[in-house]
């Protein structure tokens, strides 16, 4: 993968992967940081990326693993609540429906949330979801089924009030 190919890959997929990781972990800023770091690693490991069947899956998996590592979970979980106030105010206020969806996703078990995002947002077939998460297809189908039911219940019960993104972490 040469510079031009990488730049095209980066510009064409950064936002998409960031949205997917955001949905998986529930924190947009952290998703962006992890995806950013994953792309840095992707360029550093570009020969591995060349051999990967799905470079975008490689970046997404790397970013996700970064986000769920114990270190990040421990540290970010204790982030002061004031951070939301101190974040740059240049961005538009979050869409309420999205905030409610993120809040509901964050209440799902991690494996269900990841399966839902990969299948319904990243548009991967069950077979590819299974390959990416390292689980049998039947397990993935079960996670999807339970995840859909739980998500529907959560969104039915939950008023769509705004919750400041970034104030919590999965």
């Amino acid at each position, binding site marked *: 993968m040469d510079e031009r190919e*990488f730049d095209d890959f*980066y510009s064409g997929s*950064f*936002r*998409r992967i*960031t949205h*997917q990781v955001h949905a998986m972990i529930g924190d947009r800023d952290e998703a*962006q*940081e992890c995806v950013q*770091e994953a*792309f*840095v*690693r*992707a*360029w*550093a*490991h*570009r*020969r*591995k990326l060349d*051999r*990967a069947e799905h470079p975008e899956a*490689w970046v997404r998996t*790397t970013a996700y*693993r*970064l986000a769920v*590592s*114990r*270190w990040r979970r421990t*540290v970010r979980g*204790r*982030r*002061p609540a*004031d*951070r939301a*106030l*101190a974040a*740059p105010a*240049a961005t538009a206020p*979050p*869409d309420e429906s*999205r905030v409610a*969806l993120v809040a509901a996703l964050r209440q799902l078990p*991690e*494996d269900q949330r990841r399966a*839902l995002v990969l*299948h*319904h*947002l990243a*548009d991967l*077939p069950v077979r*590819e979801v299974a390959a990416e998460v*390292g*689980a*049998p297809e039947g397990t993935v189908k079960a996670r*999807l*089924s339970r995840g*859909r039911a739980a*998500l*529907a219940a959560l969104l039915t019960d939950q008023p769509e009030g705004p919750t400041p993104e970034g104030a919590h972490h999965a």
Partner: protein
Amino acid sequence: MPEHDPDSQDPTAPGDPIDRLAHFDQTPGDEDAVHPLPAAEVRRLGDRRRRRTQGLVAAGAAAAVLAIAVPLTVVGGGQGAPSPAPAPSQTPTQEPSPDPSELPTAADPVPNGQIDLDGLDLTAGMSTNDDGSPAQIGIDGVGVGPLAPCSTGPTEPEEQTPAEPVQRLTAEVSGPEYSEAREVRVYETVEEATAVLDAVVADAGTCPRQDVGGTGWLLEVDDGGLPGDSRLLVRTYEQDGTTPPGAQWWQLTRVGRALVLASTGGEFLPGPGLEQGVAEDTADLVPVVETVCSAQGGGCDALDGDGEQPGGSDTVPADFLLTAGWPDTGSDGSVQGPGPDVEAFPVAACGEQLGQPSTTAVLTARLDAPEDYRSRQLLVFEDAQRAIDHVTDIEAFYTACPQTPPTAEGFTYWEFRPNLLGGQALQIMGLPATPEGAPGPLGLQSISVVRLGRAVVVDQMMTEASGFEDQVRRTYRDQQAALGEVVEAMCAFTEDGC
């Protein structure tokens, strides 16, 4: 549209939660909320990371600094020692593109801290798939899966190891009553590989017996009988006081910074049949392990041990680049050191200071200039574990103080950001805030901590920058860029390359 799960609800139904999820990335105005770095900057950071993981490329430079290496106690000679000239001024935000000679080329034999596994027959002795096809070797396959011996289901463990391999090689076969998988994971450092193996073995020790649906799951941990640091985990079952057929075992072996992992499951009857299966599997794995040893530049005997890599040194080179990347202060400021007696900024928060650790060597430099105060301290520990502990202590110290007590002027809160310079590294930003929590106008602090082997560098900056995100990011990037040279220099004596 992919082949969807047949149980899926109609994704087009209005208000359907799945529809909302499917359109998660199409929120109007959301594009303004994502601010990727320029692609060239990503490549620059990737190149820097790659150079670091490949070690100090310039063997000549390493030889030069080692040739004049002297014990640290001699370095600087105390207060009266002359200070080295400050490093040339840099403006990292306008750092030029990497020198093309530094970029990897097609001639590079092995990238990114990886090892050359071209000669490895990972599938030696493995069965075939149920349809007769042989095991396929991949770099991103399932492999042995999550290393969670106490897990009784396919769900991934809640906590994952923070260490991520820089290289994987996988192979799997399966049939109706058996499955085999092998995997080689190569980590950036011996310590990371050791930590992963130790964590798995420790985890296995917590579940010698689990009751799953009326069946007892038994797990035994034993020496693996393979070269290197080798462990064998064997799971059998117990039902109604009998031992039904069925067993799974894992061979987990660390050689150098690589783990050779194998998992076998089948309808083995505990006893001689199981023992024979393990013995045959072990014999098949010996050449695999030996090849992985050779790929790291030595036999397994040379790599086996306590994690210390060859080439480490107790000394810090006399011309260690501790002030690399610092600006020229001119007549308005001063640089002290590097030297063993220069006073560093303490690691401080909430009115408390983290105590100075016990080290075998310390080298410190300090810059004092109007609106720019910096200190860098290189700490060399007796062993890697003590260095790891110190970084952990720093992390815990700031985690315990999420923000300073508020005053009429405001407060500072600490935020962790990614540090791209090391396998174990911290980047802590002390963000000034007004009493109301908005970004404060000045007083940004930035602390970067990187560990390589037994050495830790603690880099601190206190500037008049504000807590607004653009200035925070600029400071963060400046610090990462400047400290990169120091980290590369650390590779010369802390480890045999990085």
